[in-house]
Structures are given as structure tokens and as C-alpha cells.
């Protein structure tokens, strides 16, 4: 969310060469509608469109080129669920056999009774997970219409009963985790906290209160540093 300013990257298409700003050595910030060059021989990745043989950015973000594919990684975005994602959800409602889970996506997910944490009798969903509870779960299925199903069948998936929850923009998780998980491992060692990073940008931090506060302080600093455009993810 909140973001801002910095770098004076002057990469407006009309001021760069005729082919558009397609230099993969620089991380370019582009805006919607910006011309990224001719589309011949190039595959359009996410965040771009091909219009009249030109590649056009559709999002504000950093342009990246991997092989022949050009895409734009947005600077801010909502979490979009993908099958297999580990997510932290809040119970928003329930019926006799289904829980509705808020996973921070455009749509609520459903957790069917059969995929719940324990054997539940029909009509007894609220005895197991009540409205307002938080759970660690995994996305099982996402339909084209964004409807998703989560499961609690799996190793480590549980109801969260202790510690604190925090949030970070999903696109900043890479910065929190670091290369090969180094940064996160270091933070866990230094603060002696259990930290579970979910793909939807929610974090479960468990440990001593003072340590939890220290972890939250560090997470907030990652958030505020990221508001500087030009700092790489």
C-alpha cells in the first residue's frame, strides 16, 4: 500500500529510444499504458498487453525480462491465491458444513467440513472453528471465477491459538525471507521467535512478548523502506 517517492528514473517511453525501455540490466519502473517496445520475438508475461505489435504495460511496477518474456511486477497489489499457497485466514462465517475464510484475496475462500481440522458433525462447525478465529491453511483449488477452496489437512496446518499476527504486502515477502531464507532464519535466531510467513502476506509470530514486538518492528521497517521506489525486491 502506501508507497513512495524517490528515484528520478526518467524512462518515459517518449524520451528513450524508439524500441522502448527494454534494457534488462536496469530495473525500470513503468506505468500503465507505457510502451515497452515491439512485440516481435517477445512473449508477453504478466502485467503487459500486446497492442498493434507493441508491448504495453498495464500496471505500475518494475519491468523484468526473463529470456524472451517481458513482464511487469507490480509495486503494490492484492494477494491472488494460487493452488498450494500456505495462507493465514480468518473465519468470517459458517454454515452447517462450510466455513468462509478471509485470506486477503478479492474473494472469500471456503473450507468444507471434510477438509477441516477435526471430525465435525453436521451443524457443529462453530464448535471447532468459530467466527473470528485465525487458521493456518493451504489453498487447495482456485477456480477461474476466483472462488478458492482451502484445506487444513496437511502437516503443520492448524488453528492459531497463541502469538500475534502481522501483515506485509505480499510482494515484499521476498525481502523478508531473503536469499535462500537467510534473512528470515537470522531473524528467528536473533529474536527466538517462531515466525510463519504465509504467501498471502500474513505472518504468525509466536514467542516472548518483547521478542514479538522486536519482530514486528523489523517487519514495519521493511514495509517503510519499500515505500522508496527504486529499492529492489
Amino acid at each position, binding site marked *: *500500500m*502506501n*508507497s*513512495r*517517492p*524517490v*528515484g*528520478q*528514473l*526518467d*524512462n*518515459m517511453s517518449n524520451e528513450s529510444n524508439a524500441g522502448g525501455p527494454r534494457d534488462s540490466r536496469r530495473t525500470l*519502473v513503468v*506505468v*500503465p*499504458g*507505457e*510502451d515497452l517496445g515491439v512485440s516481435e520475438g517477445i512473449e508477453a508475461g504478466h*502485467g503487459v*498487453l500486446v*497492442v498493434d505489435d507493441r508491448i*504495453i504495460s*498495464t*500496471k*505500475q*511496477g518494475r519491468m523484468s525480462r526473463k529470456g524472451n518474456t517481458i513482464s511487469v511486477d*507490480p*509495486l*503494490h*497489489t*492484492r494477494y491472488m491465491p494460487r493452488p498450494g499457497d500456505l495462507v493465514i485466514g480468518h473465519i468470517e462465517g459458517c454454515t452447517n458444513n462450510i466455513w468462509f475464510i478471509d485470506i486477503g484475496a*478479492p*474473494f*472469500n475462500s471456503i473450507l468444507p467440513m471434510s477438509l477441516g481440522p477435526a471430525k465435525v458433525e453436521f451443524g457443529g462447525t462453530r464448535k471447532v472453528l468459530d467466527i473470528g478465529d485465525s487458521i493456518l491453511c493451504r489453498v487447495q483449488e482456485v477456480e*477461474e*471465477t*476466483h472462488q478458492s477452496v482451502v484445506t487444513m489437512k496437511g502437516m503443520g496446518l492448524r488453528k492459531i491459538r497463541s502469538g500475534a499476527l502481522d501483515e506485509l504486502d505480499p510482494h515484499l515477502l521476498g525481502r523478508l525471507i531473503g536469499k535462500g531464507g537467510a534473512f528470515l532464519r537470522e531473524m528467528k535466531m536473533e529474536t527466538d521467535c517462531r515466525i510463519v510467513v504465509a504467501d498471502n502476506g500474513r505472518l504468525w509470530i509466536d514467542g516472548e512478548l518483547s521478542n514479538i514486538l522486536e519482530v514486528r518492528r523489523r517487519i514495519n521497517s521493511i514495509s517503510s523502506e519499500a*515505500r*522508496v*521506489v*527504486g529499492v529492489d525486491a
Partner: protein
Amino acid sequence: MGGYGDVRMIDENGLRMDGRKPGDVRPITIETGVVPVADGSCRMVWGTNEAIVAVYGPMEAHPRKIQRQDRAVIDVAYNMAPFSTTDRIRPGFNRRSREISKVTKDALESVVLLELYPRSKIRVSIEIVSAEAGTRCVGLTAASVALADAGIPMTDLIVSVASGKVNDVVVCDLNKEEDNYGEADLPMGVLPNSGELVFLQMDGNLSPEEFKQAWDYNVDAAMEVHKLMVKALKGGDN
């Protein structure tokens, strides 16, 4: 369009009451990320106009009857703060704010890739904090910056500028006196990269030549404003 009577708004040197030439735009400042809890936001100061726009979503559309199975819906709420003008405005929606919300929504729908978010809703709140003239243009322009800031996919940004006629002279970006006592007003919404038009309204009378002149002023001004929008989104100072 109250008619100018004996009010002179263009002097003998062709300058306007605020010292601008006919084709000049008022000073503009654009800032993004001003509402931390929103998914995207923008504060735009355009002359003495000031608009704050917050974008939330895409989110589940409620009530369910407004959901579209094949695309997202945009919910635009344009509102002028009671203290935004010299005469206090009664809080809440009125005929004018409903009209502006509707035209803004229609313009935004033509650039946002709604089909990527079926059954969801994108909420755009436009709050005019200080109003001088041309608030619908400021609101629409700021809304497109806020949508880009929220990471919503769009084919282009929208720049909206109004030109009009004052003392039989076509001028760009009308101020309050020119808007109140001038003879015509032509707000336009332009896509700067493709040159397409997504929003056009007209109040008053213009001859075909005057209309063409106003059109050209709007398009030229839109290109200038677009540079500032790009700079704001890329993190540069204005």
C-alpha cells in the same frame, strides 16, 4: 455559464485574470500513497482544487446482485467536502455528485481490465477538499493515478482537462471566475498514449472552430499533465 455581463476576464495583452495565457494550465502537484490503509491513493492539487482519492479492491462485490459474472464493477463515489467551497455544501450525495460519479465510473471502465476480476468490485472514493473549478477533471485524473497506485491493471492512464470560452476567447483550464461567468465549458478525458477519448461533456455554445481550438488545448494540456502523473507514479518530485 452565468454570462459575463461587463466582467472583463481577458486583458488587452490577452492575459487572463490570474496572469495565464489562454493555453496555460494551473500549477499541479501529484502525490501517491497518501492514504496508508487504502490499496492505492492519490492527492492532486490543481490550482486551488484539491482532491484526495482512495482505491480499495478488487474485493467481493456486495450486495451480490451487483456482481457481474464476467467482470468486475467499479463503484465511484465523488463527494465534495462541506468546507470545500465558500458556501457550505450540504453533506451527502446530491444530483451533481451522482452525475459526476457516473461519468467518472464510465470513463474508468474503459481503461481498467475488468474482465480479470470477475464478480468483484473496485471501490474508488473521490473527496474534493478544496474546489475552484474543474473538480470533475481533477477527480478523474487523480482516480486514474490512484488505480495505478493500487496495482489495478489498466490499458492507459486517463488525463482530464477542461477548456472553455471567456469573453469570446477560447481558454484552457478554466478557473472559478471563468467557469462561473464564461460562455462555454468543455471537459475532456484523454488517453495520452493512444490518443483516445473516454470522456466528453459540454456546457454552453462553441462554434466548430472554437470547439476545435478547445479540443487542441485539452489534448496539449493532457500531455503535459500526463508527464507529471508518470513522474509521481515513478517516484519523482514534481
